[in-house]
């Protein structure tokens, strides 16, 4: 049994969570094999590669021989992942020796990939049919525009120029967990919502796609089919046009949603219509194993709490607006100031000082990113101070007990609570009122104790 459970945070975990039958079916598609291989941790990739030509089981012991003491945990994670994804089959033989075999379907498909190369999922349409293909820059701009528009809509910004065609019910699903709406008030970004905005595009995309897939069953679409289609899509060549008629009905519906997200661009010809995958689509198979992904920064923070963001993106402006007062908005520059008021509103929304600081640091403009610290210390300190200002009172849910029949019982109960380190307050010794306050999480124990005492 796998000993390490990976927190379900990315797409591949969804794949791993698929039932065995579906997973095996998935591996019949060479693209999926490739995409899954790429999603594996580096060690797991190596293990797959070295097992590629081996058809007999390999003992776990012999594989562990290669592992240095430092790498034991990594090795464990890699092996567990491989087993989760049913790429490795684990068997324990009579001699209680654990052996692994590579999934034969997976193996054959990978071999084919290596020996014969990638067979494209479908042929691009001849160029004489598709006359006005967008240039790669245009396509890029389209994709990013679509995506930004979608995000703005997601966070219910007032800045939306043209609402996308994504149905509001679908939007609701995406917003789940990112926004919180108290009755009658405008929905607010939750903590995870803010984190979502701080993620790079690819990670955001995966988050949305995951929500999309997990929701697919409700729309009557098989999640395995959807996964395989998405992965397939990622192996199409960016900028080439593909006939939409090669798709199934379900896929055709899906592709419309994907166009709204900016993954593909749909074009209508004289008699055919076609879709053009954008970079967002081809990035779907990007390995998601790393956490070190970065993008170009754009924010400069000065010691006088002024903030300059070299960005044309409305989204960036929206994000900055969450914790700073935007003063000017020039075509490529946003000037703002970090004020106590702006920060208080951010803290009220559940955004923490650390999140803000890490956002400023991660998105520091390359010019200031080289400096240490990239955000002036007085600014970071002040942000933290303002946050702690709000945290003078600590809230602890608790229960209040009083009306004890005897002093003994009261003292026994308070000792019992102290034993759990749960006693928050008790009446002073000389007071006649016998009452105490105990943390809510220990209420069960208290109740048990008290009922036992009563008998």
């Amino acid at each position, binding site marked *: 049994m796998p000993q390490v459970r990976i927190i379900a945070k990315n797409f591949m975990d969804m794949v791993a969570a698929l039932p065995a039958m579906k997973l095996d079916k998935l591996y019949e598609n060479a693209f999926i094999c490739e995409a899954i291989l790429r999603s594996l941790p580096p060690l797991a990739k190596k293990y797959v590669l*070295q097992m*590629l*030509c*081996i*058809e*007999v089981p*390999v003992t776990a012991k*012999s*594989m562990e*021989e*290669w592992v240095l003491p430092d790498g034991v945990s990594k090795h464990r994670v890699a092996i567990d992942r491989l087993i989760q994804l049913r790429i490795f089959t684990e068997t324990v033989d009579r001699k209680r020796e654990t052996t692994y075999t590579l999934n034969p379907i997976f193996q054959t498909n990978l*071999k084919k990939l*290596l*020996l*014969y190369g990638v067979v494209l999922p479908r042929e691009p349409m001849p160029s004489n049919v598709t006359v006005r293909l967008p240039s790669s820059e245009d396509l890029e701009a389209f994709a990013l525009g679509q995506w930004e528009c979608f995000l703005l809509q997601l966070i219910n910004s007032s800045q939306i120029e043209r609402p996308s065609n994504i149905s509001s019910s679908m939007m609701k699903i995406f917003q789940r967990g990112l926004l919180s709406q108290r009755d009658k008030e405008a929905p607010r970004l939750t903590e995870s919502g803010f984190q979502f905005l701080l993620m790079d595009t690819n990670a955001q995309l995966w988050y949305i796609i995951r929500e999309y897939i997990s929701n697919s069953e409700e729309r009557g679409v098989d999640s395995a089919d959807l996964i395989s289609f998405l992965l397939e899509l990622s192996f199409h060549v960016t900028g080439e046009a593909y006939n939409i008629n090669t798709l199934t009905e379900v896929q055709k519906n899906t592709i419309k949603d994907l166009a709204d997200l900016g993954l593909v661009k749909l074009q209508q010809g004289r008699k055919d219509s076609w879709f053009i995958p954008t970079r967002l689509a081809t990035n779907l198979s990007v390995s998601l194993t790393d956490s070190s992904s970065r993008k170009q920064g754009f924010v400069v923070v000065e010691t006088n709490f002024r903030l300059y963001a070299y960005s044309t993106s409305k989204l960036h402006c929206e994000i900055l607006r969450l914790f700073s007062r935007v003063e000017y908005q020039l075509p490529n520059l946003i000037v703002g100031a970090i004020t106590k008021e702006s920060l208080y509103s951010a803290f009220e929304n559940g955004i923490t000082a650390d999140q803000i600081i890490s956002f400023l640091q991660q998105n520091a403009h390359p010019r200031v990113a080289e400096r240490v610290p990239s955000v002036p210390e007085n600014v970071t300190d002040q942000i933290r101070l303002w946050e702690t200002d709000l945290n003078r009172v600590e809230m602890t849910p608790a229960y209040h007990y009083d009306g004890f029949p005897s002093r003994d019982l009261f003292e026994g109960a308070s000792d019992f609570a102290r034993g759990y380190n749960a006693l928050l307050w008790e009446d002073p010794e000389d007071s006649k009122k016998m009452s105490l306050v105990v943390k809510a999480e220990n209420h069960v124990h208290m109740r048990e104790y008290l009922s036992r005492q009563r008998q």
Partner: protein
Amino acid sequence: MSCRQVVKRASYKSKIKDPGTPGVLTMTENKFVFRPNDPSSAAKLDVEFKHITGHKNTKEGTDKPPWLNLSDKDRSYIFEFGSFHDLHVCRDFVGNALAKSGEAAKASSAAKPTSAAKTTSEKSGVTLPDEQLSTAEMQLRMKLLQEDSELQKLHMQFVISGVLTESEFWATRKKLLDGDSRTKSKQRVGFRSSMILDTKPMTDGRMNKVTFNLTPEIKYQIFALKPAVHQAFLTLVPSKMTEKDFWTKYFRAEYLHSTRNAVAAAAEAAEDEELAIFLKEDAILASEARRKIRRVDPTLDMEADQGDDYTHLPDHGIFRDGSKDVTELQNELYRRTLSQDLNRQGAVVLQGRTVDVDLEDPRTVAEALMQSRRESDESAEQERLDRITRMTEIEDLQEHHDHPVAQLCIKDPRDYFDTQQVNALKTLDDSRTGTEQKKCSLTTEEAYGSLREAISKIKSIGLKNSTVAPEIAITVLNGLTQNISSTKYQLGKNPQDSVLDSLPNKTKEELLHHWISIQELLRHFWSSYPITTTYLSTKVGRLKDAMSQIYRQLEEIKQSDFRHQVSLLVRPMHQALDAAFQHFDADLQKRAARSGGETPNGNS
């Protein structure tokens, strides 16, 4: 062996009271001979040591003259030597000689292994060119075996079991036998480190008399420590005053010092000029001290400041005889500080005993000391010059000093064998590879042509045949895994970690023992080639049998839990043995062919 023979002048006495016959005593390994100076004397002696049953000698420092008393069953020989030094030399020699002759007496029982070996060799019908062993040598062998348990084990294993004969066994250890382990030079008595200057007077409360105890040893020490006294002794003693007077004066001065009555000392010194010599600061020492200061490495920072001097502070300073050594400004001349004394004492002790003469006569001691001092002065001067040239000037401008090349030194022999083992493994690996070059000569065009052909071949058929067959793949993977695990054990994190250390002690010892045995056997084995005599061929046969036995034992060890590590260690041993077996078989066949079917021996 430093001295096979000792010749000393001595006088022979048959009884203690006998006045003695002067003559020359010659001692050799087996006997001692005394030739009187007067050839007509009847006191000639020629006695073999084996008759001597005991020896005694007088102790140095007692009032007895240096006598050596050798006794046999019914009489004793007493020799009086000129000095204790001679006595010691002779005594040590006699001790050795007696020990040897004693061993010889026991030789018959000790020689049993030899005879056993002989019988085995005789059984195989070959006469053994066995040397006749002297009992002394026999004894030495026994001693070596007792001292070295490893050697003893080997001896037990091979000689007693008849694989090797005694002489064969020792033939490879000539060096051990030649070793001068027996003839260690006797230890020389060093200079006593107790402060002679503290020679305490004994006062008995009743009389106003102070007694100093004086022994030759103390006299010598005084001479060594105080060159001025020494000088005074040489100039004064026989001519101006008797020795007794000299010492009385000396101790009077000492007494004055000890009472710390500088004024009294000054007064007495004014009256008696000889006494003044003792009371004054030792001029020779002072000049020597000045010389020494000049000799000090000029780069050494000797500057001391007020802060370094704690002696004037309360609770600091040196206490001597219960009172503090305080600096008195007056009578500087007669003041001697403890630190000066201590320094002098230290210097003399370090110098060691330079004179090796009889201490009885202070005169000779004084002269000998003078002599040695002169010599050492010269050498010290030379040394000082050397050092100054080395230290004072900038090194770059100096003539280069020839620094000797460091000796190559392999510290742990195991390191060496580890690398050898690694190389053996490597050659083994190499031999398994299938990458032997095919011998073929192609012209340039052909060579390039074949290359192009290969490329176009791939172009046409693709990579279809590029996957590795599963069987090969798994062997490769297993091979690599084995390599990994073996290197992991072999070259663990710490290069000092050897495979051997990872094994349990029992296995480790067993392996080491086998390794030693194999080395021993192989040494004999290979040294027996080429086989020229039947004796050698039987020997080789015996060796081979013994080796194959060890071979089997090694195989057994390999079956243990630590198969992996053990096989690593055993492999080179097996290789070495295999090579020997192979050579044996090949040689046997060759000889069989040559001698036309006449097999030399029934050994298989």
